[in-house]
């Protein structure tokens, strides 16, 4: 709302209001930062320090030992091999799954918008429903099918699952992006003699770069952060990092190393936080696209 153009009398009540608004916004900001601050502070303390201080007190002696332990020898159940392998698992799962689901999304979006054929809207609606289903309804059959095709408890199995359940999202992104492209773009290229895939590659892909960014960020964040598929379809060394993190925290052998737990939390969160900080604008666009269809 712009109220510049109207001259308002700015009496003392205006300034009281401003102070109140800024005060509230800062309190909110503090509430949002608080958990991150607590987690990072705890990850830099030794256990004595944790017991003698509070969650917000500064470390008496800053130590990176919890980070080292989290990465190399935190215990998942009885195996104390650290997060490193699970971190690698999550990347090995996320990168192919993001690439494949995004590639399928761009083809679908292009086919559904630039070549208006009968039933395109119905097909889109059928795919779109996949965005909203609760995954509980597919877990049992999926577990059976992965077992039958020999991909149970494997990274390729998880890639497959994330690709197939990513298709509705990526199709939604590209379809909604491309529906607003001018129609003469493709018809002109068509008149020029270009075929389906030529037009896709030469005309559509170059102008869809922003949508690629949205799709890649969204898919990466979702796949990295997934818990239910990883927990259902993998165990042991094949787990993604979110499952390993949860197991580390719930492994109870003697004294709980809260500092190692919190270092593990930061390590698990870093890749998606990194994406958010460097591409927040596109991240938000993905969130919005998932909520405002059409």
């Amino acid at each position, binding site marked *: *709302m712009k*109220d510049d153009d*109207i001259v308002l009398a700015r009496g003392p009540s205006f300034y009281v209001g401003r102070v109140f*608004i800024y005060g*509230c*916004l800062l309190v*909110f900001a503090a509430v949002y930062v608080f958990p991150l601050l*607590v987690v990072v502070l705890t990850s830099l303390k030794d256990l004595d320090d944790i017991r003698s201080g*509070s*969650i917000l007190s500064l470390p008496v002696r800053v130590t990176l030992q919890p980070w080292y332990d989290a990465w190399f020898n935190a215990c998942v159940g009885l195996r104390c091999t650290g997060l490193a392998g699970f971190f690698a698992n999550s990347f090995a799962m996320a990168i192919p799954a993001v690439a494949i689901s995004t590639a399928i999304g761009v083809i679908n979006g*292009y*086919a*559904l918008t630039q070549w*208006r054929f009968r039933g395109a*809207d119905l097909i889109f*609606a059928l*795919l*779109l*429903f996949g965005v*909203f289903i*609760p995954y*509980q*309804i597919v877990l*049992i*059959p*999926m577990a059976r099918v992965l077992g039958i095709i020999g991909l149970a408890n494997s990274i390729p199995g998880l890639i497959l699952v994330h690709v*197939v359940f990513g298709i509705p999202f990526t199709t939604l992104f590209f379809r909604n992006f491309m529906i607003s492209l001018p129609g*003469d*773009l493709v018809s*002109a290229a*068509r*008149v*020029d*003699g270009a*075929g*389906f895939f030529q037009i896709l590659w030469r*005309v559509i892909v*170059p*102008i869809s770069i922003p949508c690629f960014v949205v799709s890649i960020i969204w898919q990466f*964040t979702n796949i990295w*952060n997934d*818990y239910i598929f990883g927990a*259902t379809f993998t165990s042991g060394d094949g787990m993604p990092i*979110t*499952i390993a993190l*949860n197991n580390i*925290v719930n492994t109870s052998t003697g004294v709980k190393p809260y500092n190692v737990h*919190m270092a593990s*939390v930061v390590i*698990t969160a870093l890749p*998606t*936080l990194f994406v*958010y*900080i460097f591409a927040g604008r596109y*991240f938000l666009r993905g*969130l*919005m696209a998932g*909520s405002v*269809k*059409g």
Partner: protein
Amino acid sequence: MTSLRNTSDQAVSAVGRLPSAQASAMRRWTGARMAQIAVAPSLAIIAIVVYGFMLWTGYISFTRSTIMPNYNWAGMLNYQKLWANPLWLIAVENIFIFGGLFILFSVAIGLTMAIFLDQKIRAEGVLRTIYLYPMALSFIVTGTAWKWILNPGLGIERLMHLWGWENFHFDWLINPTYAVYTLVIAGVWQSSGFTMALFLAGLRGIDEELIKAARLDGAKSFQIYRRLILPLLAPTFLTVAVILLHQAIKSFDLVVALTSGGPGNSTQLPATFMYMQTFGRDQIGVGAASAVMIFMTVSAIIIPYLYSDIRRVSHEG
């Protein structure tokens, strides 16, 4: 945008070499065929993994499946078992408590932040970034962090004691009556920034002329919000409510990380109940029945919403 115009220009300039109308119609026909062929695999995959698996789970819910799916017909047995199970009743009660409070607080906090941020605030970008970063995190990360903060011995309780509030007592995480509210705290912390972003987008989409006109008529800011802006935000309220409700019903990871359903199963939600029955207690039939209940609830919310949304969009063009 410039690249868009360039490609368009190139394409248009190429129209000079116009082939025969027949060849063009032919290409259009094969192109449309190609488009259909290109979407066919996705449609087939979704037909199997969404619609097929849905029916498969539905079928299993009517069988005597225990540790493995089997296909001995059991009629409504699993549904009777489900609704006679006290754990399921707790889960259903909890989803009403959690869902209701989660939506209420997310909307209240998100809307307040959006309205405040919309008052030409310095450093709006920085504040927005801070409010939204939880959305980038896994619920496992959020749950684990809050589990530590709410730790009855060493967490926020101790912080208050050290700050001089000696008899501050906060043990919700291990209190069966209040543990479900810790889910609300962590859930709202994670999702209210997103709610803020949706409301802010809604506020920025309102026609400024309307507000100017109201102001010239002498309306006060508060009245403008109550009488004009909030009613205009009705579609945003609907979107926010549907998304949050959908998120609440699917909630699984947050419970796993924060309370593991405890203490004493007091924080089970339908999603965790389904998982526990199916993969923990070898009651696949009952698990499938609960999955069907979850699915039908989500569908009852989402299908009318999607239907009206698609209709609206196709009417607008």
